[in-house]
């Protein structure tokens, strides 16, 4: 049914031979995105005036940045491991492709435009738009990941 993208037999992967390995990795993956996307969302909510109203988003972002990075690193380690459990399935999965596209965009956006808008003093007029786009991109990444199991 699926196209063969890489010549690799996942049945030898320890992930597929240990009942707990895959769910465990998924839990870590969820914890990772909670930390990274949660802290990014906080900065976005601050830019939108919905959290930490009295706070400049730049200060908040500076304090959150290390935790965002920790979360991203956890995601980017567990993600490829999860992927390795069945690469051909993932590569052929439309939701996975969508997720990877959204993730690439979200990461690029986060460390370029978003970064510029957050740290610029005074806050740019487009700050709120930048925050909404950021939230939208990260929601797409999460939703894309979830939809892998369905489509």
């Amino acid at each position, binding site marked *: 049914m699926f196209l063969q993208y890489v010549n690799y037999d996942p049945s030898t992967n320890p992930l597929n031979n240990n009942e707990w390995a895959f769910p465990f990795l*998924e839990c870590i993956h*969820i*914890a990772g995105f909670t930390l990274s996307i949660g802290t990014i969302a906080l900065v976005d*909510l601050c830019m939108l005036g919905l*959290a930490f109203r009295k706070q400049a988003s730049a200060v908040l972002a500076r304090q*959150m940045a290390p935790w965002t990075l920790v979360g991203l690193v956890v995601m980017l380690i567990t993600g490829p491991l999860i992927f390795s459990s069945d690469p051909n399935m993932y590569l052929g999965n439309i939701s996975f492709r969508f997720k990877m596209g959204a993730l690439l965009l979200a990461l690029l956006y986060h460390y370029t435009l978003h970064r510029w808008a957050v740290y610029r003093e005074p806050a740019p007029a487009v700050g709120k738009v930048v925050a909404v786009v950021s939230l939208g991109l*990260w929601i797409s990444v*999460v939703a894309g990941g979830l939809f892998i*199991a369905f489509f």
Partner: protein
Amino acid sequence: MSLLTFAQWVQSLAIPTTVREAWLPYPIILSLHMCGIALFGGMIAVTNLRLLGLVMRKRPIADVIEGLRVPKRFGFLLIVTCGLLLASSKAEEYYYNPFFWAKMSLLTLVGIHGLIFRGSVYNHPAALDSAPRVPGRAKLAACLSLVLWTAIACCGRGIGYVEPPLDKLHAVLIGITLGGR
């Protein structure tokens, strides 16, 4: 009415039936539930890490807790609404799911955690700031909260791994449960 008949009744209501049987609602609600986890979990993490002195050290605890109160409530509302929709749509199946029971038990513990620590820690952040050091009970509350919520998320993930006992199920959900992992 036994718990099982209650679960069957809940599941037979119009909205849970739609969520279970239609094509898109279930994955969409689950995605929103996940986004809620990122948002709400992120805020829980930030609050508790601040109590432990690991983030935003220069900012008063009162600022962090009060600055997050409103979005946290919104996140909680989102996550609970989605959770109720998801749970009610497969109530009968989850009646047999040990991870579901574990998650519900942990949520009860979180409620008890709130009863104990809201009054003494979270509702009086100014007192924590004026103390020379963050008191032990606040750090205990923070650790327990982090552990409980992590465990809840993990049990939630675990729910999807339990094969539904098809022979025992009353409603027609075979087509959904097989694809819905």
